């Protein structure tokens, strides 16, 4: 791994319906770097902005503010034609491939479509599909089948094959296993890990499932209402979470080993979006550690130890509450 980042995201923000009453800052000043070959997980609950961040990064949605640099190329300055060409190096795998596929297309034409758009010849496309099917664990005879003839796990394999068709370097995996049963989840996670090792892929892994994230990620960024509240390598984040929201999130995961479960931390009340203060920390309304400054000043993401960043005024001073 080189230390030269493949992806640099700086101050990325998205305001939907700006200037209206319904104006919503879905992503707010998000920054992170990613090096080639790593998996950064974006975790958080519904509405935290994790999926929007993934789409902003690929400029599938136009950011309101901020900058994305991919392998030295400033994505924001590209014309739409240039963007289309550059974007082949980045692909997306969706949560529910069933709704991401045209039901009238065969698996082969679904997988080949990105190549068709990129101008590949019919014989090249056919050959590449022939390579891709076994790579994702599908058989040659699957090529002529339609989406409804596949199981959920097989459909996700098709989605992954399509994402790989143009030999990308970077894949945004947006909840790729959330719709799958546990036994099938494990198969798809193993496949994603194998492909990453084989092709040196870099993953932005968007998920609400901390168990899956804990398994697959190198580093984890926790988002809450549009902002990254904590970012650290996986070991640190799970062993020594600093932000009260991260602690709440980790404590809420039902574990099968009864010994490690301390029950839901009582550090917070309410649900996501409860009593959001405009000026201060967005978690202040739910946080049991809240002090005056939390309501008046928004905490910035700041390093507290090598690579461990936290956006909390009390970071480093919060006693782990039981």
């Amino acid at each position: 791994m080189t230390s030269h980042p493949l992806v640099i995201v700086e101050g990325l923000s998205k305001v939907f319906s700006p200037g209206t009453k319904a104006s919503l800052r879905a992503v707010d000043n998000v920054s992170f770097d990613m090096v080639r070959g790593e998996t950064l997980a974006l975790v958080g609950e519904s509405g935290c902005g994790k999926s929007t961040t993934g789409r902003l990064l690929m400029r599938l949605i136009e950011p309101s503010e901020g900058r994305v640099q991919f392998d030295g190329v400033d994505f924001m300055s590209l014309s739409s034609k240039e963007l289309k060409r550059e974007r082949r190096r980045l692909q997306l795998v969706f949560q529910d491939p069933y709704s991401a596929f045209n039901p009238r297309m065969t698996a082969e034409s679904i997988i080949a479509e990105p190549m068709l758009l990129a101008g590949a010849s019919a014989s090249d496309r056919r050959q590449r599909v022939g390579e891709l099917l076994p790579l994702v664990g599908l058989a040659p005879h699957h090529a002529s089948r339609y989406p409804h003839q596949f199981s959920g796990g097989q459909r996700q394999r098709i989605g992954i094959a399509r994402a790989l068709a143009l030999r990308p370097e970077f894949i945004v995996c947006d909840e790729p296993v959330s719709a799958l049963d546990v036994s099938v989840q494990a198969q798809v996670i193993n496949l994603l890990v194998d492909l990453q090792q084989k092709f040196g892929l870099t993953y932005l892994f968007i998920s609400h499932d901390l168990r899956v994230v804990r398994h697959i990620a190198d580093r984890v960024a926790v988002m809450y209402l549009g902002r990254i509240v904590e970012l650290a390598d996986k070991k640190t984040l799970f062993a020594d979470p600093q932000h009260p929201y991260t602690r709440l999130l980790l404590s809420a995961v039902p574990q099968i080993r009864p010994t490690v479960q301390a029950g839901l931390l009582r550090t917070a009340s309410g649900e996501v979006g409860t009593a959001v203060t405009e000026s201060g920390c967005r978690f202040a309304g739910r946080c049991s550690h809240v002090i005056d400054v939390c309501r008046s000043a928004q905490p910035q993401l700041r390093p507290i130890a090598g690579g461990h960043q936290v956006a909390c005024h009390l970071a480093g001073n919060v006693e782990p509450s039981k």
Partner: protein
Amino acid sequence: MTPATDHELSPVLRKQDAPLLRVENLSVAFHTRNGLVRAIEEVSFEVPAGKVLGIVGESGSGKSVTALSLLRLIPSEIAEISSGSVWFGGRDLTRLSERELRRIRGREIAMIFQEPMTSLNPIASVGAQLREPMQLHLGMKAAEASRRVEELLDLVGIPQPRKRMTQYPHELSGGMRQRVMIAMALSCEPKLLIADEPTTALDVTTQAQILDLLRSLQSRLGLSIILITHDLGVVAQFADNVQVMYAGRAIEQAAVAEIFRQPAHPYTEGLLKIVADLEAECGRLSSIEGTVPAPHELPPGCAFAPRCPRSDTACTASPPPLSPISPGRRCACVRPVGFPQFRASA
């Protein structure tokens, strides 16, 4: 009531130890273009009073069909109960008339579902929806029911109940909507609550709050609960007993602590390994290869045999019956994991 010690109980009172609900050999088949397709087959289980039974399985395992069939909630044009009984309060629910059953649904046995938004009426206020079952089942007047609604909303942890009563479902968050559903389910003080994936659509922190709420209500009200879920973690945290289902059959039944200590069915073992691997951050996940067979493509023997690492010729003859393997435990496997002394006489 003063608690009586065991030897003081008369035979009549001891009868109360009988399970609240007993399901015997329940089979349900769906009408399809290609004839009847079995969705669940010979499912038997008991729910003791005041206990939580977790029914766990993946998509297509038959866990929801089981739950819906207890109250005959699948229309007879779509599916039929082809055999079996559901004993509740001395009566077989499969034999009751629609009219008799309506007196039990919502009153003695209540149900909550995965997506509260689709179960609530979008054009009726929370208060009106909560009053309805009490007016219907308990013959309450509107004013009395309203007072009770306020208490119920308070019971399920909804702040400002009076204000919430006038609101509509779309004005509430997902967690609040599920709390309203729970309040509605509890309004007629049922003995049994069937919760079908009650937290699956919720965020993880909201899920934890709802499970906390259900747990505290369960112990406070002495409620029995059947919890349908795909999440073994939820079962571990919440249930007393567990039934694992696969391809329409109950394949393992045990106390929760037992099953997590030593799963007996290879399928249960496989699922637990995956979850344990995830929690242990190990390199490669163990996985169960293949997929759940479709109901019309079931193999003649054990439905799990094609995916099972332990399967041999004995597994392909006929489906192994759910048999006792140790006190309080049953497993449908010819060669259960960790019970080498046991061989099913299938």
